């Protein structure tokens, strides 16, 4: 058949997907990174070997993935994050899967090469990189993203993350300010480079896509993870971190994987508590905070790396709406239909909220009140009320939600 010939031709003048001569980009590897890379290459090779052996035995090869849905998620308070259940699906090589199968193997090959030469690619780059795969190329980035998700899920079973497979999320990770010195490495020499986050002027340190190699020096008492840029800016410019000896992190909505991983590494290595300060609405609670703390349902395979089980919910709590008389100040908004649906869904389906009575009560209270409050709502009293009154009181009482 014509296709066969074409592919053979492509093979003979095959351009290596990632040119090995270009050399390293992400810098000198630490010993830990080298070990991890070695393992990554081994696991990729193992998977390919399994397929190859199947073929030699004249059997249809298959690939095994975890089932990715809330239904295949377990939550155990002691573990502290959503764990992947036992659900697995096997993708046999069939008419429907043959294209995906081929693309996965080719992308795995790309990944392996990148690990070997210590390079990395964004999702977008990976998509464009497929353009020299001939018939197997991706038409849209959504296709390559799906395949990437599949590979990520597959390797998560071996404890390997997407970052280790050298696919960078394009998203940036959020901003950091406060009492912390971040120790990065010089990309060329591998020498430590220290970044003092107390001396960033009006700007902040941006969390990079790859955080695994970072080290920290800090004596901060806690990390404050903030939802909105507005509140973060206020706290940072007023040097809130100096008075309360803390590290401020701006999440900018649902925290990115890098941001979650960064907070996790920081909290693990320095044994400091993490407090989340988000809007008091179902999105802030069930999406932003829940993702930060235990991970998400449809990406449960990565939660073990991308979650901060030690995080606590500082506010704004539904009780705060009452305590700070935000309703009386007319600083609240009615819950929309989507809010109500999201809240009910959290009560009904989310194993995290279900296993914490405090949360069940809080969400029920929110639904009963029928209103939501943003973290910037305290400006209803005065602009610095949040610095002067709200946060100090909350930190003093330590009445956090789990």
């Amino acid at each position: 058949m014509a296709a066969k010939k074409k592919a053979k031709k492509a093979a003979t003048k095959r351009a290596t997907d990632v040119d090995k001569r270009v050399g390293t980009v992400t810098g000198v590897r630490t010993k830990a990174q080298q070990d991890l890379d070695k393992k990554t290459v081994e696991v990729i090779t193992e998977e390919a070997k399994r397929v190859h052996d199947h073929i030699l035995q004249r059997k249809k090869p298959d690939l095994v993935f975890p089932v990715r849905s809330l239904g295949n998620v377990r939550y155990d308070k002691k573990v502290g994050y959503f764990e992947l259940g036992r659900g697995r699906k096997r993708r046999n090589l069939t008419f429907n899967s043959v294209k995906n199968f081929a693309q996965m193997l080719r992308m795995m090959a790309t990944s392996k090469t990148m690990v070997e030469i210590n390079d990395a690619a964004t999702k977008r780059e990976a998509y464009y990189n497929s353009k020299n795969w001939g018939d197997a190329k991706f038409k849209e980035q959504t296709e390559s993203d799906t395949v990437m998700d599949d590979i990520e899920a597959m390797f998560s079973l071996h404890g390997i993350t997407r970052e280790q497979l050298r696919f960078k999320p394009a998203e940036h990770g959020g901003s950091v300010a406060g009492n912390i010195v971040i120790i990065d490495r010089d990309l060329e020499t591998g020498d430590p480079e220290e970044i003092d986050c107390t001396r960033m002027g009006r700007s902040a340190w941006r969390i990079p896509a790859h955080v695994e190699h970072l080290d920290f020096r800090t004596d901060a008492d806690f990390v404050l993870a903030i939802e909105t840029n507005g509140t973060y800016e206020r706290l940072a410019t007023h040097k809130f971190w100096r008075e309360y000896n803390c590290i401020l992190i701006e999440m900018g909505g649902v925290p990115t994987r890098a941001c979650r991983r960064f907070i996790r590494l920081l909290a693990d290595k320095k044994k400091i508590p993490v407090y989340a300060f988000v809007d008091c609405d179902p999105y802030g609670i069930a999406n932003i905070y829940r993702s930060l703390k235990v991970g998400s349902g449809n990406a449960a395979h990565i939660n073990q790396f991308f979650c901060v089980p030690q995080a606590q919910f500082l506010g704004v709590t539904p009780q705060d709406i009452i305590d700070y008389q935000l309703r009386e100040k007319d600083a609240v908004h009615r819950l929309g239909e989507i809010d109500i649906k999201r809240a009910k869904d959290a009560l009904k389906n989310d194993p995290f909220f279900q296993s914490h009575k405090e949360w069940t009560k809080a969400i029920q209270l929110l639904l009963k009140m029928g209103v939501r409050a943003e973290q910037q709502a305290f400006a209803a009293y005065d602009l610095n009320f949040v610095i002067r009154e709200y946060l100090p009181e909350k930190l003093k009482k330590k009445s956090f939600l789990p």
Partner: protein
Amino acid sequence: MVKGQGNLFGPDAEEESEGASKKRRAKKATDGSDSTTSSGGSGGSRKTAEAMAKSQREISVSEFFTKNRHLLGFDNPRKALLTAVKEAVDNSLDACEEAGILPDLLVEIRQMQGYDDRYTVIVQDNGPGIVKAQVPNIFGKLLYGSKFHRLKQSRGQQGIGISAAGMYGQLTTGNPVRITSRTGKRAKAHYFEVRLNTSKNKPEFTDEERESDFDHGTRVEIDMQAEYRRGMRSVDEYLKQTAVSNPHVRLTWNDPSGNSIVYERGTDELPQETKEIKPHPHGIELGLLIKMLSDSNERTLHAFLQTEFSRVSAKVSHEICDIAKLSTRAHPKRIARAEADRLHAALGKVKIMAPPTNCIAPIGEAVLLAGLQKEIKADFYTASTRPPAVYRGNPFIIEAALAYGREGDTMEVTDEGKILTRKKAASHETELLGNADEAIRLVRFANRVPLQHQQSACAITKGVISVAWKNYMLSQPKGALPIGPMVLIVHIASVWVPFTSESKEAIASYPEILKELKLAVQECGRKLATHIRKGKRIATEYMKRDYIATYLPHIGLGLQEILGISDEVRDKDVEILTDVLERTRKV
């Protein structure tokens, strides 16, 4: 005699030679005046019965058909040509088969010198020949023949056809029909020139002994005004269809342009010989019953019933007489009108075995298929012969066969499960098989004779349209034939085919016939649907495999890059994968 012919033209006739039409116009004027005088009632002057009696006289059959020649299929020159060929070929084939001779026919049409619109039709057979005394009657007398009074499956049945063709030729050209007939090697051939005296319905002829180049057989030559054209409803198509339904016939066809086509035999077996049967009590009409009663030589009703009808035993006869409240010993000739009525009713009530079916010979599924395959190159063939059934006491059999798709439309699947594409045959103009976006071609046969005209009035067409073709994977506009590259053949064989007119163009829609028709066609339809589905399945599977084959090499490339295997191992992997997938995929 020759000069007098022109007078016989009916006023309704449209196409004649120039000379003839002049005469006709002259005659028309007198006809017109005749009709006003004889019609009466419309004008002011009233006529007496005596006056009217003067213009009341017997009409000869020939005169009737001269005026109504459209009833016989001579409405226009093009159709006349085909009808003449058809009648002659029918007679030849009937004669050969009855004599147990494998037919070898020559059909030739020649343009007459000096005329644009006159042709000579020549049909020659290798049949038993015709004895000298009968030639003039057969060719020069309407309603003369052997086939009308019997119940036996044959092509001709009325005794009109060939003499009507001769009459038409004589009317349009003035020339007699020329017949050469030889009954055997030892007999001399006789050459006749026969004219038909239309007012007396009697032949006028000359004959002489002649040398002939054949041992036995008959050669008919008719000069006639005609128009020769190819395409639908042409002589060419008729002959081709005849070859399909009569694969035991060898047929040579010389067309006016000098081309010669030989349709060779598909089988050396003559159709099964059919028996003549008596009428079956079911479906006999009262008038016929009365006539049979008075014509019978039997002395008792009991004997009459048993000898004149098929499937009437002594027991059945008693039963009939009981129901009709007639004595079994009543004399048939003396059965009165009212009693005949009761007898007729009784005949319909009694349970009687279906008529014997050895009187009809279907073409047979195998022979039909052979005929189709011989003349139509297609992708798929199927045929179905129904068991005999009865309409109005006449046994009949319906057969259907179809050829579908261009040769090579369906891909081939090997025993190993591999799919091979086949070279597709190119379509050419003259073949019966239509294009995929056209209505199917329906070819109708009655007692092996192709029916060319009045397709929409025919029971066969109605039956085919009434089938829900969608169920058989063909699209079908409402109330029309389905669409598809298909030739559908339907054959009705019967001792008496119920044509809607004497020109034998369409079959009457008896419910029993429609029912059998549908069943036969549906059976073919089911097999067709299986074939089409299979074809589609294979095509889909082929596309799927092609799709798979596009990506398998990439699995090889991916593995090679990760595992660092050699090109040979990689190619071997792809080869194995292809094989494994093809094996596990069923077609």
